[in-house]
């Protein structure tokens, strides 16, 4: 099997940059890294299909040896669709995370940090560096703090309504759940 060197180099560079981006804290970069790795994998499948040839249409005047292998291309199409759907979901997630936490960083798990401090016997303040690494830096925070945070407002309104409801039915006791969970 002969392999096109150009494709191989392009694939390697895409994998390398993709892995580099995937290891970043910023979720936007993680998304870009995922896209690069996804496309590099598609190239890998293409390379595995062997030499390029003519369109694989049976019944024409092309002999089957000269056709390119159609199966990898079918696989790539499926993979592209999946990557597309997942990146759409990731973008929605990044947007949501940006609205809630005002940055798109992947933060440390609170329990893991607690375990680390517990093991080393140090009481450190966890979760340093709020938005230093985001694409938008401090501007992101400014933009969000000026924007109306609809979810928070809804929650606040719901909490107030719930509070007044509880106050009204104070004596009708315990198990009435308000549906509002303390977060």
């Amino acid at each position, binding site marked *: 099997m002969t392999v096109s060197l150009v494709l191989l180099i392009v694939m390697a560079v895409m994998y390398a940059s993709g892995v580099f981006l995937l290891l970043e804290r910023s979720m936007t970069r993680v998304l870009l890294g995922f896209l690069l*790795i996804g496309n590099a994998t598609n190239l890998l499948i293409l390379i595995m299909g062997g030499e390029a040839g003519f369109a694989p249409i049976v019944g024409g005047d092309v002999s089957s040896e000269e056709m390119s292998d159609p199966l990898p291309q079918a696989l790539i199409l499926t993979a592209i669709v999946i990557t597309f759907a997942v990146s759409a979901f990731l973008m929605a997630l990044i947007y*949501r995370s940006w609205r809630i936490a005002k940055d798109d960083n992947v933060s440390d798990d609170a329990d893991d940090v607690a375990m680390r401090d517990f093991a080393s016997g140090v009481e450190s303040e966890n979760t340093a560096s709020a938005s230093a690494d985001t694409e938008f830096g401090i501007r992101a925070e400014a933009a969000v703090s000026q924007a109306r945070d609809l979810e928070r407002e809804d929650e606040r309104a719901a909490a107030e309504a719930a509070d007044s409801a509880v106050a009204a039915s104070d004596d009708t006791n315990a198990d009435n759940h308000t549906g509002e969970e303390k977060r």
Partner: protein
Amino acid sequence: MNALVPLVVMIPLLGAATALIFGKRPRLQRLVTLIVLSIVLVIGAIMLVVVDGGEPLMMEVGGWSAPFGIVLIVDRLSALMVVVSAAVLLAVLLFSVGQGLADGDDETPVSIYYPTYLILATGVFNAFIAGDLFNLYVGFEILLVASYVLITLGGTEARIRAGVTYIVVSLLSSMLFLGSIAMIYGAVGTVNIAQISQRMGDIPVDVQIMLHAMLLVAFGIKAAVFPLSFWLPDSYPTAPAPVTAVFAGLLTKVGVYAIIRTETVIFPGPELNPVLMVVALLTMVVGALGAVAQADIKRLLSFTLVSHIGYMILGVALGTAAGTSAAIFYVVHHIIVQTTLFLAAGLIERKGGSTSINELGGLLKASPLIAVLFFIPALNLGGIPPFSGFIGKLALFEASAEQGTALSYLLIGAGAFVSLLTLYALMRVWNMAFWRPAADVADYESPMLTNVSEAPNAPAMQQTRTIPKLMVTATAGMVVLSVALTVFAGPLFSLSSRAGENLEGPSTYVDIVFPQEER
């Protein structure tokens, strides 16, 4: 009978579409979801009976014959997995219906919850019946995308943080899987599992080992095998209780199923078995040690989940029919028991308002029923005789003693030790949350609590909420099912033995796809 095979995938998928159409009518959605999963359970049971009669089912999708078209295959292992997962999905569905009815659906936004749940089921079933490596990848992707939605349900800050870890790790494993499919195609020129198995012998052994290792890493991330298991305890506990339960029960087991197929059909050679055994040892021990250090019940259960994956890997790594049978039995047992424990943890959370053993107390008095529903699966998971956990572990230990190497004896010792640690962790939950009087919770001093860690800014005590009957009934149903595994352990074990014997060497599987071929 072969026509039943694709229905297992088609019905949930169509059901998901139907449920999505009725997004504004939650009652109809619930009904559709319930009916769909019940039908799949019935179909799975019929398939299991037929397949166990000795006639494996095979469907060539679109009428294209085997190496060219996509094949769906149901042998004993697939049928058993389909039945068990359909039962678990149904029970968890009832649990979440109960929860949704009680909470006015703010934990589980109805309009997307049920369709997503059915798509998750589609992916799980598709992975179990795929006879084609790329179709297995598609099955994985279907269930993963659905799980991304379910784990970030509601979009709160904690869930998004946990979801990001889960999603990025899963994406990486999918890309590794896809990459290894490409490599395997490059090496043997096919993605049909049976044909790969036929041709793999012609490939040089070193190339085989590399392809094998790539596949195992990809599946190992999904199954949460030790060095690749870090993501699981970080991401599972924050999801809603029913979602965590179904993830814990099924998603990692799909990874284990893929590993069983890889080890028995695609790469039956023993080259990587010692590596797998060491990995199994580390998974068991590290997971159990993690569980011992946790104060949060859901997190603790996530760690026991990781540690018990080690037992299944041990069975697979032995590379004998006895080992594979024991692993299959253990998978069935663990799907049901782990799901039950997570459901019980969901009940504890509602009753006690927290899942931290530092905060809980007096639950035995407050709700004896929940106590029973937690106690039975806890003993079962810890491997106390006569429960199925004990039977599964015993079978695994027997299979490894049969092999008789130093490493396999070491694994037996580690397995016994880990089951004690599991028991210790779960009994600590029992002592603190159920036996300790509620009045003693503040300033409670106990050597049992000195060595647990918990995040300082963990969610505070929540309001305790009423527990609808349906949630208790669903959990009780799962407990009954887990006890039934013990009562009917004989027939089940002989079934898993037959499944394991089918997987001794790839020839049985290959014969399903290429029946006439002289081998």
